[in-house]
């Protein structure tokens, strides 16, 4: 069944149809939540809340990219949750590294793809962990923008719509987020692959 038909059915209250949409988008929604929330369980909760919220607001969906609409909801859920936590800080017990067993094996272009040897595999996972740590050091608003644009591949306007910030703000925050991640990654230079190696020899 095509996506539009499922959306129409879900708008009429068909939970089964909506769950088919959830199965299609849960990976993307969860990843956005995961990189914004920094925690596996919090990310799952946020993604779940986002789907519940999406089902309830489905009547307000007026066409356009359904994935962008969903990611806007999950981004807002995550940012709201982080703001709430900032007001009432709680000790995180489940801060963790990327789980190697959960890394999507269907990610041919990913850093963990084409693993040649166990040593190489370990290096790749360390690199992925390093990037994740650098991203997670960014403020939540910066994090959301860099994930939506660089990781999920959305345009500036879509990202602006998702985080409900002006286009200029999105441009500016993205540039600063990239610069901060690059500076952070300098600590892990030895992990970076040849093709991705950042070089500062240019100006030497």
């Amino acid at each position, binding site marked *: 069944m095509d996506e539009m038909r499922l959306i129409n059915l879900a708008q009429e209250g068909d939970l089964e149809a909506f769950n088919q949409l959830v199965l299609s988008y849960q990976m993307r929604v969860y990843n956005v939540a995961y990189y914004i929330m920094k925690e596996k369980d919090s990310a799952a909760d946020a993604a779940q809340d986002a*789907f519940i919220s999406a089902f309830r607001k489905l009547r307000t969906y007026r066409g356009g990219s359904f994935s962008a609409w969903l990611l806007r909801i999950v981004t807002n859920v995550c940012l709201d949750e982080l703001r709430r936590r900032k007001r009432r800080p709680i000790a995180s017990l489940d801060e963790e590294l990327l789980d190697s067993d959960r890394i999507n094996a269907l990610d041919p272009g990913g850093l963990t793809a084409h693993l040649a040897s166990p040593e190489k595999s370990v290096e790749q996972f360390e690199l992925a962990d390093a*990037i994740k740590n650098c991203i997670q050091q960014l403020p939540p608003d910066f994090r959301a923008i860099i994930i939506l644009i660089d990781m999920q591949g959305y345009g500036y306007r879509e990202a602006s719509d998702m985080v409900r910030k002006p286009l200029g703000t999105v441009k500016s925050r993205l540039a*600063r987020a990239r610069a901060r991640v690059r500076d952070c990654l300098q600590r892990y230079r030895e992990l970076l692959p040849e093709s991705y*190696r950042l070089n500062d020899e240019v100006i030497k």
Partner: protein
Amino acid sequence: MRRLSDLSARDLEQLSAYIDRELTVKETARLEKRLQADRTMRWALAELKATANVIEKLPRVQPPRNLTLTEEMIGLPKRRNPYPIFRLATAIAAVAFALVVGTDAFLLSRFANARMIAPAKEAFSIMEEAGGFEALEAPSEADYAQGILDEPETLVEEAPAALGAGSHEDKIDEETPPYESENALPIITGTIEEGQPTATSLVVSPSDVGQIDETVERAAGEEEPCEERIPTTEEAKGISAANEMTATVPSLPSATPTPERWVAKPSLSPLRLAEIGLGSLAVILAGLTLWCRRRF
């Protein structure tokens, strides 16, 4: 080692937007000119591109659990599947329908015979007791000679005229009930139609005579709205003939239903109504059952 963060926010923004092709043509041309001249800007552009590529290749993570929703999560009470209930209801309605149809068929076959035989028997026995058969036999020549009856030709030809140019014929036809079986006695309509009747067939059914009597009386007694409906001499003759005929026939209970009875009888018996109701209910329930089966 230099830090990208040391660059001005304006330059960073321009370089970042240049990577994503978000600059205008004018801005792009201006930045490219600058890139050719400024080595630091080239370096910063390369660093930003590499960073964006690294982030893009970041591995995707599997959710720890399935994120599909349940009815409890969205605050809906768990819906019970109504399919078994509808299936049972359909079966009950179908059985009830079959029972009612069977009962109706049984009662019809039983009472139809009784209804046809009993009144005929009763009528014949009463007529026998009253010696009515002799009276109902074909009129003799003496009857005609004594003037009790007109000549058959006169009656046959004049009766329609006396009843008023077809309108009363129609009336009789409408009021005359259809016979339930071939065993029933002939009906008056057969005797009034032109060319067919004889005086002999006219006197077979006493009730028919009564009907003629009523009809003729009505024809004679009603005020006719048109001038041509005013009884003529011929009509009066026909009426008197009918009255005389009535006088010759003994008054007997009717063996066939009178028109009034037919009119008063309801068109659908309660059993028929129950059949229709249950049949419709069974069809509706069957449809709902199929819908539930597909839906749930």
